[in-house]
């Protein structure tokens, strides 16, 4: 029987390092080396899910050594610096990376982003069996690009999967959504968005990333190569438009208390004890 390669595309986003993002749980320190931009944690989980499928026993007729012949492509759209997360993906085990980058793609909303990713997959990777995305990226948190990419490619999709299994061309996914524990299955090609599920990702060592950088495994694709047309302008063509942005104004009294723990706690209860005891529904001494 002819051996067929199983093609997986994992969509990976580079996100800004903001104050709430991964830190080393063991040492309690921030990942300073990622201050400029890092792989979105849910993309990372999606990549791991893809790598995990390689470990599964091969369906009948495929490789006899127990491993399926799975090719994993990490795909990203973003500024040139996003190349870094694709090298990281290769260091982690992806076979190659592809970066869609062009000034004309900048400012795309989710509708247009899914169109651009879809154009690439349609034109350059028509044999894709499975697309994996993080369920919700850590910067914009829209959870929209995955479902919209499935629509764009007109393939079935499962969202918020915690665990996926592959049996030939049937994919089974487990998920816990809206208080329902569900097992879903679909025939491939298809798309799955992977829920991060609360595990703390471990990052590839810098040596691994460096080695990946030295290989030429990341391909750059611009708007012309994608055939998006001269007049293409993602910012202008996106259905949504940002009117303005602002910092949420503080509307509180904002009383500042300083001192030893005992002093501040005493003052807190002395001055605000009534509010606290009322919310507790308990009567406190001295209020």
């Amino acid at each position: 029987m002819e051996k067929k390669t199983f093609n997986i595309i994992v969509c990976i986003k580079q996100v800004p390092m903001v104050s709430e993002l991964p830190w080393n749980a063991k040492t309690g320190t921030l990942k300073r080396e990622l201050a400029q931009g890092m792989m979105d944690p849910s993309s990372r989980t999606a990549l791991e899910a893809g790598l995990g499928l390689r470990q599964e026993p091969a369906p009948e007729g495929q490789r006899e050594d127990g491993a399926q012949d799975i090719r994993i492509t990490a795909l990203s759209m973003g500024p040139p610096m996003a190349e870094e997360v694709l090298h990281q993906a290769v260091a982690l085990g992806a076979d190659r990376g592809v970066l869609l980058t062009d000034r004309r793609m900048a400012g795309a909303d989710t509708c247009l982003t899914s169109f651009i990713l879809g154009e690439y997959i349609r034109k350059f990777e028509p044999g894709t069996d499975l697309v994996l995305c993080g369920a919700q990226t850590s910067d914009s948190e829209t959870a929209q690009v995955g479902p919209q990419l499935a629509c764009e490619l007109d393939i079935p999709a499962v969202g918020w999967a915690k665990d996926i299994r592959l049996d030939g061309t049937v994919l089974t996914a487990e998920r816990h959504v809206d208080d329902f524990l569900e097992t879903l299955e679909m025939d491939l090609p298809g798309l799955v968005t992977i829920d991060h599920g609360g595990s703390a990702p471990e990052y590839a060592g810098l040596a691994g990333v460096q080695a990946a950088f030295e290989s030429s495994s990341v391909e750059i694709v611009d708007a012309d190569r994608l055939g998006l047309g001269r007049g293409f302008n993602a910012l202008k063509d996106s259905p949504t438009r940002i009117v303005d942005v602002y910092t949420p104004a503080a509307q509180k009294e904002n009383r500042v208390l300083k001192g030893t723990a005992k002093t501040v706690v005493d003052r807190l209860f002395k001055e605000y004890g009534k509010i606290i005891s009322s919310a507790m529904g308990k009567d406190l001494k001295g209020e």
Partner: protein
Amino acid sequence: MTTNKDIWVLGDYRNYFRSRVTLQILARAKSLAAKNCGRVCALVFGHGVDEYVGEYIAHGADRVYVMDQPRLKEYSLETYSFLLTGLAKRLQPDILLVGATRFGQEIAPRVAKALNTGLTADCIDLEIDENGRLVQIAPSFGGNLIARIVTPRARPQMATVRPGTFHELPHDYDATGEVVNLDLPEGIPEDRVRCVRSAYKPATAAGLEKADIVITGGRGMGSKGKFKKLFELARLMNGEVGATRPVVYSNWIGHESLVGQAGKHIRPKVLFSFGISGAIQHTAALTDADFIVAVNKNPNATMMKLADVAIVADANQVCSGIIRAVREKIRD
């Protein structure tokens, strides 16, 4: 453009007794409709759904579009997307709002894509501007910013809203509304995703959204062991424990306790915030807290600026201090 001014709200009722998000959005839609002179229309797909039709009218819907068919008994993403897309194409609402349940977060992007229109996720507010456009207000850019977003040309204007963002209106027993029963359209595609098993299994920490006192902790608590103190304080105060994303990622507490855009939206009478810097994804979900006490070593942390009382000190020590104080003060 020949759209009418109707505001549609997708009736998401599968978890009706736990998630009242449809009712909350109906309330907001009613105030938006007062400005754009449209009707509030709820959409109900399912089988044996009379009770929801009645509830939606009692909570503000002027009209309810109903497809009540055995085929629609179970929520189906592909079928429901097909139906909603088809109806929106035919009846052309001006605005389509969906609750940001997991189901809503899957169906809304699909429908927006099929209609080639915009969609703003997890809005924290919605307004009608002087041009009659829907202004979708949502946290953005992964920093401490809020963006005002419009959909200038494409229709409908679409947004998802996280449960707990708006207050539902009281049940109005005298309310009347028009019920429009619709037949199933031709050509519904076979569902390509098969549900092998579905069991009702509520996540824990359901009380977080309803609690009068919420004790939240961030990585400033120091360690998983020290974080456990928050549970003791919560027990003493009849409260619930919430957390930030780094804490959840580090497995100090389960995902169901996450307070933020990707988690729970809370509205306690008193919120204690220990060792939290205050990224917008977290703070956007607690703007309805009546009284906030924040403890952080860094007086310039965003969370400290949002607080009624900002205590500049070690979060862990102050937490212990409050536990001691409450123990002493509780009358037996």
